């Protein structure tokens, strides 16, 4: 701690002069000299009021007003002018801090000066090489420096876009002045007076100014680039906590951010919502006996912001609601958690649902897409999340129904399925990585066998169900499949049902009880005979497989039929 730190502050004010006045007073009371630049767009009346409020504070000066527009060189010009006046009026200044009228000092100014005094020759300015990793959010990177930007982005958006595009097509490339390497960074910095003077008095300043005048958002690159030229002790981190959303707009700070901000130990934060009165009176924290020179710790507030950005950009998987209604295949997660579908098992084992409930530690449902009723496990009058058991209600939005069921419950959801059920979710389930599906094709023929219906009806329904399941299988055999599907035909399944069930059940629920016994199976006698009759009536059964026991039928007839 050799020289005492004498802090100078440049305050850029655009609107909300009431807050700016307050901030100017805070800085001035903390012992800093303040140069205020008020945007020329602000009315004279408001400015007069601000001047009157700040009259009598002799360490505050007002600098000539310039009309500033976002992303243009006018902001840099205003900063340059203010810096020049500040250094002229208060030549003893050792550090200059650039802040806006909505930047709120969180810790006492004495903390900041103590922190700066730890390494008095260090320049605190975020400065990232423009050609390296993308620092910017939602904007151009190196093209900021290699194209011309004569048009205002806010006011002449279309002209701006068109001109940028045109230059790209014409492969126009500006020459960057020799001796500088473009750097980007937060526009809020704290430079030593030495570095700042060197930038302002650079013999080539006119050349640099001319160059930056037509670059894009020079307030994020002018000082960041030139500081590299004149300083070799750069601490590339801004002292101002300023967070941007995914489109590059700054976040606002409200009363409920007080604990997070206090925990961040940042010196200055922006930008404050003007109505956050409690926040404005809470900060800056009062002076302490011994100034605390500790630096900022922004991890927790970074996490808060990152979570919010993530929510805005990616959203919560499996959520369909009034402000999140993703297009097909843009869902970032069609459902929120893994789930399993058993197809055909209830046809082979009539008591399969009860059996499964006893074996698994998950929620087992019946045919929740069934035509007569939404068969929630335990058959309640109202399903989880107050979902209706009426299939008409469910079929208004089956996808929303399934996603809601999975999202509202805490345990894994398992349900039964068959070609008799609503088929609208076939693509949805097949393309959902959360889905785990066990399919036994052709199993639906077993209930038909025992239906006792006349043969003509059996044939008609058989044809219908077979067509439905074939359509579904064409989905499961497509290249778009994301679900994990285990496919067996009835014949294959019946060779080793216990093993297949054991493996599948283990894969969806590691805590499942080992499969030692199977539930009672539907009688298979007569199946081969029924299939033979169907074949002879001109309907080829295609889904039951070749491994079905020929049963009592002699094989000669089959050969004859082929």
């Amino acid at each position, binding site marked *: 701690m050799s020289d005492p730190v004498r802090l100078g502050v440049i305050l850029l004010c655009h609107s909300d002069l009431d807050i700016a006045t307050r901030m100017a007073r805070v800085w001035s009371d903390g012992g800093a000299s303040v140069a205020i630049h008020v945007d020329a767009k602000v009315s004279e009346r408001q400015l007069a009021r601000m001047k009157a409020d700040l009259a009598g504070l002799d360490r505050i000066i007002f600098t000539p007003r310039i009309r500033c527009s976002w992303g243009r060189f006018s902001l840099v010009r205003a900063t340059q002018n203010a810096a020049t006046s500040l250094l002229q009026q208060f030549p003893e200044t050792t550090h200059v801090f650039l802040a806006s009228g909505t930047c709120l000092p969180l810790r006492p100014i004495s903390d900041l000066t103590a922190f700066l005094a730890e390494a008095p020759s260090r320049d605190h300015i975020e400065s990232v090489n423009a050609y390296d990793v993308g620092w910017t959010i939602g904007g151009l990177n190196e093209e900021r420096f290699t194209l011309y930007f004569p048009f205002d982005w806010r006011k002449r958006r279309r002209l701006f876009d068109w001109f940028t595009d045109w230059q790209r097509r014409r492969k126009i490339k500006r020459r960057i002045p020799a001796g500088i390497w473009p750097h980007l960074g937060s526009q809020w910095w704290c430079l030593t007076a030495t570095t700042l003077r060197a930038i302002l008095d650079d013999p080539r300043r006119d050349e640099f100014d001319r160059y930056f005048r037509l670059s894009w958002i020079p307030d994020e690159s002018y000082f960041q680039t030139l500081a590299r030229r004149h300083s070799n002790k750069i601490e590339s981190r801004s002292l101002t906590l300023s967070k941007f959303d995914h489109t590059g707009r700054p976040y606002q700070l409200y009363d409920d951010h007080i604990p997070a901000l206090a925990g961040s130990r940042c010196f200055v934060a922006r930008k404050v919502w003007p109505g956050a009165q409690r926040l404005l009176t809470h900060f800056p924290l009062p002076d302490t006996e011994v100034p605390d020179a500790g630096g900022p710790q922004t991890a927790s507030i970074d996490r808060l912001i990152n979570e919010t950005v993530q929510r805005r950009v990616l959203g919560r998987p499996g959520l369909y609601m*009034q402000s*999140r209604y993703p297009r097909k295949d843009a869902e970032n997660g069609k459902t929120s958690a893994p789930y399993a579908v058993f197809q055909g098992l209830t046809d082979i084992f009539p008591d399969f649902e009860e059996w499964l409930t006893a074996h698994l530690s998950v929620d087992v449902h019946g045919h929740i897409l069934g035509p007569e009723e939404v068969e929630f496990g335990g058959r309640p009058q109202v399903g989880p*999340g*107050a*979902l209706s058991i*009426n299939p008409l209600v469910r079929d208004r939005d089956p996808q929303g129904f399934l996603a809601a069921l999975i999202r509202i419950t805490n345990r894994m959801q398992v349900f039964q399925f068959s070609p008799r059920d609503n088929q609208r979710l076939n693509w949805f389930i097949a393309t959902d990585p959360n889905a785990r599906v066990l399919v036994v094709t052709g199993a639906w023929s077993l209930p038909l066998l025992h239906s006792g219906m006349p043969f003509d009806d059996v044939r008609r329904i058989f044809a219908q169900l077979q067509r439905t399941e074939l359509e579904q299988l064409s989905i499961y055999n497509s290249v778009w499949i994301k679900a994990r599907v285990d496919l067996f035909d009835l014949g294959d399944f019946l060779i080793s049902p216990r093993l297949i069930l054991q493996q599948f059940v283990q894969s969806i629920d590691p805590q499942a009880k080992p499969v030692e016994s199977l539930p009672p199976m539907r009688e298979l006698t007569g199946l081969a005979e029924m299939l033979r009759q169907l074949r002879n009536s001109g309907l080829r059964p295609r889904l039951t497989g070749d491994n079905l026991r020929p049963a009592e039928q002699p094989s000669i007839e089959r050969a004859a039929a082929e």
Partner: protein
Amino acid sequence: MARLRLPALSRQTRLRIERQWLLARAIRRRRALTPVVDRTANIRRDDILAFVTLRNERVRLPYFLDYYRKLGINHFLFVDNASDDDSGRYLSRQPDVSLWHTDVSYKRARFGMDWINWLLWRHGHRHWCLTIDPDEFLVYPHSDTRPLGALTSWLQAIGQRSFPAMLLDMYPKGAIDDHPYQEGQDPFEIACWFDPANYTIQKNRHLGNLWIQGGPRTRTFFANDPVASPALNKIPLVRWNRRYVYVSSTHALLPRGLNIVYDEDGGERPSGCLLHAKFLSTFVEKSAEELDRRQHYADSQEYRAYHHGLQSDLQLWCPESREYRDWRQLEELGLISRGNWA
């Protein structure tokens, strides 16, 4: 609702004609409204305005006004549709209320939307306007710590002109008239239960808005005809411009862009909820009266279903109902979202 059939024109043109027709209709029918107290001269530049149509809601008004004053509404514009209780007199005494009176049929004024569109056109230009019913209470992310002005200024900063708030039907545990509602009371002390996850969503291709249905009304009254069950999607908060118009209730607006309040790329945009305190002790009486008047949407089908349901002593509460806590609970359930409002 009137829908013009103009097949040969592009969608853009058709929608423009529809919007202008609705607007012209609202302006033409302005004389249906007689001013009772007009304090609109007090409206200042950045005030947030509330637009309300009501009929015989005297007992609800004190809490309603109190709630929205605390939230940050600066001026209320009421249309009193032939109340025969004390509503009109009570409202005209409030310093921040402007009141219009009309005896015209609610139904023929497109369920009050002609009146509201006219008032919005006349007084809403360049204000954030909240269009609600006296039994709807807005909840949005951070609404416990941040006033409505914080929300609107942030929406403006991110360039969003409209804010969705789905209707969330609240109901008591037990029969509806078990706990009589007292004037000034928080209705959600009684009706504090809601359905967490049984909402169906469909996209309306014509207007671009989402059509949300479900909740306790669909579950109990409309289970056999879910298509007819009431729409729950609403866009009540809009930075108004003279060119805008509400199409049917506050479910949809024109121009179409105002209805696109949802993200289609998987992200979440900000949204809130209108807690619907319809199912209080006052409801039984009201449904009988409304049934007589036949002034409601689709021939008061809704009220007929209610009346039928209520007489056979139906309960809305079920074991899967959730008790309302705060906006964080609604956000966790995915009914509302903070979007990127950290």
